[in-house]
């Protein structure tokens, strides 16, 4: 998986949990919280959906890694690839 594909995965999840947000202009380097109205319940949902849909575990200590799309991609892409390698 590429980092761009990973960002798409995260955006798809946000689109489902917050359908009332406009995601057409999300800046990857800016914190999601600063450009969208997402609260701690929504971030918990991003984590829960990653587990449900993709079997990706994000321990609570790492939640801050999900701050922006760029940081999501940095943190999650290796996890996706490790999972794919395991088959």
């Amino acid at each position: 998986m590429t980092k761009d594909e990973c960002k798409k995965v995260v955006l798809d999840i946000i689109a489902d949990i917050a359908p009332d947000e406009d995601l057409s202009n999300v800046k990857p380097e800016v914190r999601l919280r600063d450009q969208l109205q997402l609260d701690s319940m929504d971030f918990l949902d991003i984590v829960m959906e990653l587990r449900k849909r993709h079997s990706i575990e994000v321990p609570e200590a790492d939640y801050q890694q999900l701050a922006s799309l760029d940081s999501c991609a940095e943190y999650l892409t290796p996890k996706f690839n490790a999972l794919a390698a395991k088959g």
Partner: protein
Amino acid sequence: MNSHSHYDVAIIGAGMSGLAAGIRLAHFGKRVCIFERHNAVGGLNSFYSIGGRKFDVGLHAMTNFVRPGIKGTPLTKLLRQLRIDRAEFALCEQKQSRIAFGPRGETSLRFTNDFVVFESEVAVQFPAQIDGFRRLVAVIKAFDDVSLDAASVSARAVIREHLTDPLLEDMLFCPVMYYGSAQEHDMEFGQFVIMFKALFLEGFARPLEGVRMILRVLLEKYRATGGERRMKCGVQRILSREGRATALVLDTGEEITADHVISSIGASETERLTAASTAEPAVVGPLSFVETITILDRQPAALGWGSDTIIFFNDSPRFTYEQPSAQVDPRSGVICIPNNFDYGPDQALPEGIFRVTCLANYEQWAHLGDEAYRSSKLHWFAEAQHSARRFLPAVADETLSAATLATDMFTPRTITKFTGHFGGAIYGSPVKQRRGLTALDNLYLCGTDQGFLGIVGAMLSGISMANYHILQKG
């Protein structure tokens, strides 16, 4: 034990909070079953049929209404968390509501879903108080009302820092208390904030079909996520060992097991099931209500009652929110006219509905014989309706009788009979357990006694407890 009798989570009660908790948990793959003793879902916000006519109980109006695009409020959080599209609830806004005080409602504050209307009414009726009122509203807006650890502060004390006119103070407390306070005379400030926002800063709405529409959406969602439910099957006992719930004994005598148990039935009611001795037993709420329902053969507008959706009334010098010594206290109450939501040009409720709610004393109703119960209902139906009509445009008794197709009334006894809540206490115990903790490690409370108020609050309570105790922990 067969494989079907173990669940990740067992939920007691299929009211708003239990259903919402169930949806969250089932959506994330938990094996969930809701056990409900009654044959209908909804708990304190349910419905029933008599003679082919459907009656709603509980819900006057869904509070917390905000228009599309307003985010970060309880309604938006709820829709996101349950993956519900707001169009599914088909909410229609109130026309206007009033707080009417004085023997004939001489002092009246109108409010709508636009807060500026309420603020300008306060400015006109209480010019000396408006600066203090604005300061109070700023404090309310800034208050973190969803914190699970908020310190307990008297709402009366906070309000008196900003307002000096007891009439205005009482006029603010009346709606806020009637729509959610389990405590007499005063409230915890955090609870006041939740209700003030829900009623005034947000607003009232309702689906044309009333509470049934909301319940249907929740049920469909729950079914689609794979949740199970068992109706007419209550929980009789919660068995425990070493501080953990180990099994539930159902009304059928069956035993089921679950890793976690969420109970929406109330703190005292749950304690009774566990038979565990606790240092501080939960307190049963002192407040109950009666409600009269009058079905009319015409739209209320035809009687001149077409403008007000909800009226909170009080005829006395001070507003008294306490357990009455008599069966009912008709001095104050709430009028609801469900026809007076803006359903649009092509939709209307087929019949007129006029509902009046007043404070009542459970003990005075609980032990009556059949005949005394029937005659008490007749007596207080007339008293409550008579009291409320003082705050509406005058309609002759003969005209109202001629327009009346049917009447019904619920009492504190009805509430306990159908919901299992002790003391007919719709708003539960005055002592809330914000974190939902009980004497058992894996048994949590949600709903009324967890302490988020109103039906949106009830659903958020189920969501919060499912998140906090189960989903967040993996």
